[in-house]
């Protein structure tokens, strides 16, 4: 059973290798790490909801090559995002930016909270207003009540 442990370790470690594999990685590990971080934020257009770092599609490999080239040329992350957005639009970013077409999306949680608070406050105020409209019994009603239930039973 000596073989079991290495095999198990290999099987368990499989997901670690689940990302796009490139032959031409950057020689400088710091630059490569920077490029990989940028790749995680860029969408693979043919796989819809995977980053180009995750995907093995040809298209993702092409885009990874561009990212590495730009990092090597000294571009920073925002410059590379701008480059990609200029060609593919905002959709290439895994996190949609706040702009005129997405502010509704980003603000919706806050809008819903404000709306909810408004509804609650309207209901609370209405409840209080109803409580105040209770008027004391008139003298005639007091007398009627006494004849029905008798004076002793009144609390």
């Amino acid at each position: 059973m000596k073989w079991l442990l290495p095999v198990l370790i290999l099987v368990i470690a499989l997901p670690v290798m689940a990302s796009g594999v490139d032959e031409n990685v950057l020689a400088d590990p710091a630059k490569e790490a920077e490029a990989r971080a940028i790749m995680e934020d860029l969408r693979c257009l043919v796989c819809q909801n995977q980053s180009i770092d995750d995907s093995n599609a040809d298209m993702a490999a092409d885009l990874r090559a561009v990212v590495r080239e730009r990092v090597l040329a000294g571009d920073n992350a925002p410059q590379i995002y701008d480059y990609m957005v200029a060609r593919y639009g905002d959709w290439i970013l895994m996190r949609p930016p706040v702009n005129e077409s997405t502010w509704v999306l980003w603000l919706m949680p806050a809008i819903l909270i404000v709306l909810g608070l408004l509804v609650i406050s309207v209901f609370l105020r209405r409840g209080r207003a109803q409580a105040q409209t209770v008027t004391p019994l008139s003298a005639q009603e007091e007398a009627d009540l006494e004849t029905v239930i008798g004076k002793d039973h009144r609390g």
Partner: protein
Amino acid sequence: MKIKPFYIAPAIIFVAVIVGLYIGLGLNPKETAFPLYDQSPPEFSLPALVEGQPDLTTADLMTGQVTVVNFFASWCAPCRVEHPYLLQLAEIDGLKMIGIDYRDTRETAIAYLQQAGNPFDLIGNDANARVGIEWGLAGVPETFIISADGKVKLRIQGPLNEPIMKRQVLPLLEELIP
């Protein structure tokens, strides 16, 4: 009894959500943004598909002639499906046909065009897909139409077909070519 706006609000919100979702159903999530629209085509230079011929450059797309740019590949099945429409476009007078062979080898692409027919006046070889990225390409085939004044007017993602030709391509060409 007077109906308070407060009470009909949920009904209005419900209808708005349904209308929004219905519009969303008609959108194609695979269709990506088209930042090139009404812009000049990107700067590029590609070796010709047939060795020895001059490079294909941006200048070739801006000669004052209405131009079709088609990204294709010999390994791409939908490209074979749309090929008859490219041959049909090649028949139109005053229309320049440019092919860009995408992620492909010269030999297979040349053999493909010999077998299927060559609709193109000029063909570039984009072996590493770098020019495709400049054009915002999400795959092959993709077809672009450039006006005589050098602006990208239309992009078709995926293969040309009868409805796309009738509704988008041919009406635009009629408008662009006097």
